[in-house]
């Protein structure tokens, strides 16, 4: 298959998977009540997915990435703004790399 066909196939599959997750919660809740225990366990999913996504970059690259991650956390807590935190993180990693040469 060509790269183009594969790309369209991937996008269509991702769209179907996402809509499935969006619709199935309401569908299930209209039929069966979710046990509080399962619901509480599933609440760990989003946070641990995102931690897993960024852990290799933050923990195993140069100190610039680790420091910039700390800066992003601080700015995010202080400002509560995603765009400002993102800008601060990018500026910090750029500065860190220029200084350390990472």
């Amino acid at each position, binding site marked *: 298959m060509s790269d183009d066909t594969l790309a369209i196939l991937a996008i269509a599959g991702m769209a179907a998977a996402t809509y499935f997750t969006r*619709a199935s919660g*309401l569908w299930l809740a209209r039929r069966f009540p979710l046990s509080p225990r399962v619901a509480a366990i599933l609440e*760990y999913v989003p*946070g641990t997915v995102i931690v*897993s996504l960024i852990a290799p970059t933050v923990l195993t690259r140069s100190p610039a990435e680790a420091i910039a991650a700390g800066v992003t956390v601080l700015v995010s807590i202080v400002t509560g703004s*995603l765009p400002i935190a993102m800008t601060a993180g990018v500026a910090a990693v750029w500065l860190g790399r220029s200084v350390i040469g990472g």
Partner: protein
Amino acid sequence: MAEEVRFDLSGVRAGFVACLPITVSVFAYGFVFGLLTGQAGIDIAKAVMMSALVFAGSAQFVALDMWVSPLPVGALVLTTLIINLRHVLMGAALRPWFGSLSPGAAYGSMFFMTDENWALTMREFMRGGRNAGFLLGSGLAVFLAWVSATAAGAAAGGAIRDPAAYGLDFAFTAVFIALLVGLWRGRSDILPWLAAAAAAAAAAAFVPGKWYILIGSLAGTAIGAWQREPARDER
């Protein structure tokens, strides 16, 4: 429920207007996504198509990282499914208001459920709002910002040759860190998150491909389930 739930244009309009301030950060996030699609080798038409059809920020960012030739279609779809599993819980929480609507209105609205406008809609309902059109209206505002930002970012991306030289490759990580700060619920997250980080970093070093995302989140969720068991609470 004392008052009957409605679904009409006034609710859609109220949701759209209430969501406008949030669209600023959605636009910034979508712009970065668009910017990075060029680096991943996705053309602007497919970038916009992905944003309009998938319409799920974190899953789309992860897909960028997995976008290599030949495309791992199965892994992309499976990863998308796992990242979006939280939607199942969010959708279930809407049952008191969407349970009695017609299937068309209810399941049509679900396409437009994102983290941002779901939270806004839950707050509206908690405050006594009874118009379920709110979710659709606020979701449309997010949708328009997300898709137009993707197009703008993809168009601008061609102008930036080496994003790493400006630290822009870190934008993706920084966005997730900021989202993570918002997901923090307290001390019960410490152990699961540490376990996820350790497992993911170890898996990234030793397992090829993107399995570290799944391995890390399963490890963290397992620790979360373990510490929730009643015996643990007696410490």
